């Protein structure tokens, strides 16, 4: 085996690639060769580190020095200073919020320090296209343990005891689900991995598949053994080309080593995996719709029971879990259910990966133990709200979830507490909003999403979400009427109780939760015809204040010639003509134009 004195890890996740990490890698390769360091320093392309905001990311081992926003032009410094002379390149270090001090080691950065990385442990640290990297740190050990020392019932008991619950949204106990599929008699059974991550604002599954695909495959194989299935499908969104590519490589490598295929570890257990690319339909994240889609039909849900564990793919008993759920399984087998159950709260065990996005300093992926508070996630890990703005709400659980206000920041984040306050874990997207976000607009945004993605099979979802969206649209346009709020509530309640599948049943949640915590914003839109956040263009007005020096820049900028005034005199905006594009405000050198 070759030895290297240094390893340079370059993030090759979707985020960093689009920030230019491929160019950085090419430059690094070239300059290392030029300096004759290519035999001493190894370049490793890794999956996502989860700190996408700071990309492209480069880590130099053995020191663990963490460089951020690395561009092609910075490579010379890293090679010359760090790799050649052993000096850290200060200017490329992450600077702490507040003190602005550079932090060399990634383990000391708040964003990582306060996380508990179990599922994401390998992401960013191994080459996802190299199975030996995964095996070297204990990969496939769990599968070996399960196949050679445990019977299927023991595997299921272990998963039950660990308290693992589905990470796709519902939070159903995984061991119980596996048990149902095992109990159903049948020669042929299936395991399906739901990688149709469609919630806007969630990308942990994509990062896992791109950064540590074998962990998911191993989890699926263990599940196959437990329930008695010899075939598995990974249903992946077509929008994730890199994840699909890495999964294909991973499956091929695992097959070559006999870790997937026939007679694994000489145990007589056979397990084969196939990838199915989704074709662009959010509703296919619903398990019955997903199975219809694999079967080559329109992805339309059907009523349950029968549940997939009884009659699933092609009528055979099937177990479906999402990516993150399967990723939890190998560690439960190797480290034991007791260890796993020691993390988290009484009814929510283990860790959860959250995707932090929106108005927050550190966007990225954060894995934390269940039961942590929202405040810790947003402020300690996420670094708070940028540009000195005030926190307003956090949206959790995507289009099925809800918006939580500041008062609830200190509550425990777990499945049951979130349901109580009208939100849900969902897939774990956390979108942070500040004072400039309008809550009516946000609930309209989510509803227009679910409305567009409604499959049209059942009436409450097809028609009901349409009516709700119409009402929200007229409220944001200043046409809201007395009684609109009450009508929204009635519709929401009916849709929740009568829609066929999870998509429809949870579609009203964003509206209900914003009504619960931000009702005054709805009222302001309807009664006072104003948008407190200044986000609804139909309700905002631009005005020029006394500060105006009459320079005339705004008149040149205005696309509809709505601004007039004498040179060096106060200008005014014709509200009839104004289209509220905001171009004048952006251009004004004296900040004389206000929005309200």
């Amino acid at each position, binding site marked *: 085996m070759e030895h290297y004195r240094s390893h340079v890890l370059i993030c090759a996740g*979707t*985020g960093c*690639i*689009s*920030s230019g990490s491929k160019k950085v890698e090419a430059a690094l390769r070239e300059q290392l060769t030029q300096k004759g360091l290519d035999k001493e320093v190894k370049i490793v392309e890794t999956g996502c580190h989860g700190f*996408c*905001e700071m*990309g492209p990311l480069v880590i130099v081992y053995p020191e663990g020095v963490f460089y951020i926003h690395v561009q092609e032009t910075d490579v010379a410094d890293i090679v010359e200073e760090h790799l050649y002379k052993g000096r850290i390149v200060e200017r490329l270090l992450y600077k702490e919020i507040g003190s602005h001090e550079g932090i060399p080691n990634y383990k000391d950065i708040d964003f990582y320090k306060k996380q508990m990385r179990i599922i994401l442990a390998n992401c960013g640290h191994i080459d996802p296209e190299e199975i030996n990297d995964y095996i070297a740190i204990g990969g496939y050990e769990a599968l070996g343990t399960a196949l050679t020392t445990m019977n299927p019932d023991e595997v299921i008991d272990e998963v039950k005891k660990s308290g693992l619950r589905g990470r796709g949204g519902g939070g159903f106990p995984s061991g119980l689900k596996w048990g149902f599929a095992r109990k159903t008699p049948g020669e042929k059974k299936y395991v399906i991995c739901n990688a149709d*991550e*469609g*919630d*806007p*604002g*969630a*990308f942990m599954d*994509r990062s896992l598949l791109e950064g540590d695909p074998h962990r998911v495959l191993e989890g699926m194989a263990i599940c196959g053994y437990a329930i008695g299935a010899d075939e598995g499908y990974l249903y992946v*969104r*077509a*929008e*994730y*080309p890199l994840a699909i590519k890495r999964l294909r490589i991973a499956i091929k490598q695992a097959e070559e080593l006999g870790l997937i295929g026939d007679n694994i570890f000489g145990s007589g257990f056979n397990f084969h995996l196939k990838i*199915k*690319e*989704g*074709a*662009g*339909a*959010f509703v296919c994240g619903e398990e019955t719709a997903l199975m219809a*889609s*694999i*079967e*080559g*039909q*329109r*992805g*339309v849900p059907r009523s349950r029971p029968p549940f997939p564990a009884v009659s699933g793919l*092609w009528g055979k008993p099937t177990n479906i879990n999402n990516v993150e759920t399967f990723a939890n399984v190998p560690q439960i087998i190797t480290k034991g259910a007791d260890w796993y159950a020691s993390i988290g709260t009484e009814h929510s065990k283990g860790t959860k990966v959250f*995707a932090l*996005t*929106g*108005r927050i300093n550190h*966007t*990225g992926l954060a894995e934390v133990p269940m039961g942590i508070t929202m405040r810790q996630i947003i402020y300690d890990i996420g670094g708070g709200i940028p540009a000195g703005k005030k926190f307003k709400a956090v*949206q959790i659980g*995507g289009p099925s979830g809800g918006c939580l206000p500041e008062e609830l920041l200190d509550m425990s984040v777990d499945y049951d507490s979130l349901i109580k306050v009208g939100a849900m874990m969902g897939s774990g*997207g956390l*979108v942070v*909003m500040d004072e400039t*976000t309008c809550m009516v607009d*946000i609930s309209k*945004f*989510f509803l227009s*999403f679910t409305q*567009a*993605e409604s*499959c049209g099979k059942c009436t409450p979802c097809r028609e009901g979400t349409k009516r709700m969206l119409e009402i929200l649209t007229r409220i944001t346009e200043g046409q809201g009427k007395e009684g609109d709020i009450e009508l929204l509530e009635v519709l929401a309640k009916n849709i929740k109780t009568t829609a066929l599948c999870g998509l429809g049943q949870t579609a009203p949640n964003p509206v209900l939760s914003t009504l619960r915590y931000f009702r005054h914003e709805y009222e302001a839109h309807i009664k006072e015809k104003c948008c407190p956040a200044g986000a609804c263009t139909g309700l905002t007005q631009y005005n020029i204040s006394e500060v105006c020096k009459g320079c005339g820049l705004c008149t040149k900028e205005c696309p509809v010639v709505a601004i007039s005034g004498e040179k060096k005199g106060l200008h005014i905006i014709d509200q009839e003509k104004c289209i509220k594009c905001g171009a004048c405000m952006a251009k004004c050198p004296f900040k004389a134009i206000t929005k309200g």
Partner: protein
Amino acid sequence: MNSNQSTCCCGGKNNQFNNLDEILKKYQGVKGSLIPVLQDAQKAYGYLPKEVLENMAEKMDIPISEIYGVVTFYSQFHLKPRGKNIIRVCQGTACHVRGAKTILQEIEDKLKIQAGGTTTDLLFTLETVACIGACGLAPVLMINDNTYGRLTPESIPEILAKYR
């Protein structure tokens, strides 16, 4: 012209179904292969022409109505020719709160088409997508398989220029 001309995906009337036959051969006997067949056919033809779907229906012994149902259900499939470059502007939550609307507006203005439209020179098709999953870089867009993040309206012309 180069020698690839004879295998050009749009082909002449006569060899239009050669591609389809090859695709069907690949999936022969595979259960539930309609969606992969459609995906491959769209890759080969650029879109799903009516004649190809009719031929597919006959050879796969699936009613054309059912195929039409599947094609129109999934947003990935297209019944009309599309541009050489597909622009997908993300409309996800993170992008929404970071100004995705202005990005879409800018592209619409620059290309003089609406979302869902194709430029007359068939160079660009503009679409919106619910979420690309690159929320850390919001607002983002994809052109073909390339992702561009941290967009501002000012950054758009430069990105488009790469594909002209």
